[in-house]
């Protein structure tokens, strides 16, 4: 299993892997917002956490469709399906590797982009923390979409459309926890704990559903 994790990490940083595409997309989205919104610093710092979260959500969705499709195209998926190792575990490890390669860089880049949005230290810290906890959920949800669309050519758009409604709760609780950290009356902990619960919930449901979809799509 560690072999699979390391292999997927290696693949994502080599040519055509696309680990950096997500970060670049994230940076592009957030960097153009101040130009579009204008130099109103108060407004920027108010919408900052939401913009960072939306950017991170879209960037997470960007590379998800290749999660299983690349394996299917070169025949590796057939071999993985035949192993004694439970497919659920294989999917889980692939998700973790995918998150480490494309989700974690978003979390690491978010403080820099928070400066673009004139956010204060507390807001930046809270956004980074919620992204760290919330983005794995997007990967797990996305794995289900990627598994359903594995046999479809150009399934990328379909994956995004399938996944987006399910990812909305992650966005809602992520953003509300980030806001709660800076706006006084709202408590930080309840939305943050719900965010953790969502991630843990999809860490179980996502690989199970994805494995079932992969089994039924193989022919």
């Amino acid at each position, binding site marked *: *299993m*560690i*072999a*699979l994790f390391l*292999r997927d990490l*290696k*693949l994502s940083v*080599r*040519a*055509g*892997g696309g680990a950096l595409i997500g970060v670049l997309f994230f940076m592009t989205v957030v960097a153009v917002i101040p130009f579009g919104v204008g130099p109103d610093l108060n407004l920027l710092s108010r919408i900052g956490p939401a913009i960072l979260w939306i950017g991170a959500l879209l960037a997470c969705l960007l590379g998800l469709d290749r999660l299983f499709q690349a394996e299917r*195209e*070169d*025949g*590796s998926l*057939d*071999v*993985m*399906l*035949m*192993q*004694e*190792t439970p497919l659920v575990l294989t999917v889980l490890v692939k998700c973790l590797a995918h998150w480490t390669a494309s989700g974690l860089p978003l979390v690491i880049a978010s403080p820099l982009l928070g400066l673009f949005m004139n956010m204060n230290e507390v807001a930046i810290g809270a956004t980074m923390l919620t992204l760290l906890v919330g983005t794995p959920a997007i990967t797990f949800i996305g794995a289900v979409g990627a598994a359903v669309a594995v046999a479809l050519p150009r399934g990328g758009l379909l994956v995004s459309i399938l996944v987006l409604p399910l990812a909305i709760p992650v966005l809602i609780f992520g953003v509300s926890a980030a806001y709660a950290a800076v706006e006084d009356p709202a408590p930080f902990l309840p939305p943050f704990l719900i965010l953790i619960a969502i991630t843990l919930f999809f860490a179980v449901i996502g690989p199970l559903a994805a494995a079932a979809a992969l089994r039924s799509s*193989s*022919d």
Partner: protein
Amino acid sequence: MPVKLHVEDLAARRGEDLIFHDISFVLRAGEALVVTGANGSGKSTLLRALSGLLPPETGRVRIEGAGSPNLAESSHYLGHRNAMKRELTVGENLVFWQDFMGDSPDGNGLPVDVAIEALGLSGIGHLPFGYLSAGQQRRMAMARLLVAYRPVWLLDEPTAALDASADRMFAGLVRIHLEKGGIVVAATHQPLGIDGVRELRMTGFAGVGDVI
């Protein structure tokens, strides 16, 4: 305990069409079955049904004497696609499959460098897989059969894209596998170059396969 492969009344469907039905055979340790037939006669479908990748319509496949009664877990499947990543080097690909697949309880795979040597490709293990020619890629895909031990090999057109000498070398590998008590089921147009193999001729589209 020697392995024994039982296939009973196997039938498989692709979409609406029943591709074949009533395929039954028994293979004992050291036996090979060559599946022949025209294009589209169901050779690949038979192999995918055996490997469990395509749920069979009726019938069952089981194996005795291997670690698990499930044939998928006791077999290698070499399909049309090589199951290798173009971005990784040949060595990295093989090390990954060796770690990921592990060995069946009743045998041991070869070390990666020995397997590469056995395929006659020593010296290019450090190259990315995508740099190799089609024939070299196919040979490297065969090296996967050697690095992790499985008693049954399911081979779909194994020698397509291979030159005559690679053909002979592959026949040698199959012979060694059979001598060790393995089983080989191969779909092929060219003769495998091994004596004493049984032949299953697929006639396609619900025609009956004859074991000769």
